[in-house]
């Protein structure tokens, strides 16, 4: 399985994601400069966290117009697995691949901490290695992770089981419906504020993030087998 990790000016979790894929899966993973507009040959894309373009204007807004985003949109439309973590989630929303918006945290501060998440759907390409309702420890680090959307969008997300992760403890940012991560209708694009790549070895404080990566590999293999 080949992973692409686009790097925007200001991305700073790019290498964490690359190391994560290598350490957990040992699969091929490549950094892709934001000016590249071709992602053919990759099976999955990880939009990393950080502060693309300094998070100026709105987090993710300026990155959305980087050339690489066109091919990310194409990859998503082709059904490839795309995951946006933290800033990557914000970019996916700005690009219209995921609904809603991430506003400033309700307490107005940046927040870095471990959070407890509940896995709300384990029948997906990103969560098939988790148990339904399982709680996992994954860190957050963001100033704008307060998920919001209009009531009809929320209903749809709930009805279609698109909410994959909710904050199970205290809501760390004011997110609507405790939402920590959502998937698109097709099930191949995930956006989440918590950082699974920061929870892959015990000394990091948790290894619960590993199974997100192994889930993706599993889904891809099944898909290969089916094809």
């Amino acid at each position, binding site marked *: 399985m080949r992973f692409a990790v686009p790097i925007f000016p200001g991305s700073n979790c790019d290498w964490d994601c690359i190391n994560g894929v290598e350490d957990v899966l040992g699969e091929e993973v490549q950094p892709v400069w934001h000016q590249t507009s071709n992602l053919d040959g990759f099976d999955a894309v990880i939009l990393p966290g950080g502060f693309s*373009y*300094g998070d*100026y*204007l709105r987090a993710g807004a*300026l990155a959305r117009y980087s050339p690489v985003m066109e091919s990310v949109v194409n990859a998503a439309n082709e059904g490839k697995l795309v995951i946006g973590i933290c800033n990557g989630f914000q970019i996916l929303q700005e690009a219209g691949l995921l609904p809603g918006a991430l506003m400033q945290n309700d307490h107005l501060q940046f927040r870095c901490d471990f959070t407890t998440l509940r896995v709300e759907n384990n029948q997906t390409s990103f969560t098939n290695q988790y148990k339904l309702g399982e709680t996992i420890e994954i860190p957050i680090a963001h100033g704008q992770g307060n998920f919001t959307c209009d009531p009809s969008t929320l209903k749809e997300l709930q009805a279609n089981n698109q909410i994959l992760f909710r904050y199970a403890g205290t809501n760390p940012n004011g997110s609507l419906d405790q939402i920590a991560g959502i998937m698109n209708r097709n099930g191949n694009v995930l956006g989440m504020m918590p950082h699974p790549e920061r929870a892959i070895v015990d000394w990091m404080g948790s290894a619960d993030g590993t199974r997100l990566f192994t889930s993706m590999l599993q889904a891809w293999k099944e898909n290969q087998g089916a094809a």
Partner: protein
Amino acid sequence: MLKAIIFITLKESVLDPQGVAVKNSLHTMGYQTVADVRIGKRLEVVLDTMDLQKAEEDIRIMCEKLLSNPVMENFTFEIEEVDESAICSSNLSGI
């Protein structure tokens, strides 16, 4: 009720990194004519009073002490009369 519309802008010689980044993005998007971008704030403060003079005084002090940072920013404001129903209701309750 009175509503103050307050504009807070960066002082001229203060760097506006955000403005620079937005300008560069607009260029990348093809808007080469964009010569400059500066980003400031616009605040609406609704006051439950009809005393215009007092309101002006209060708003000025609020701007100086809390709403703007006199080291880096300038402010201007205008005050208008509004009726109750015009006020956005979504923030009326506290956190």
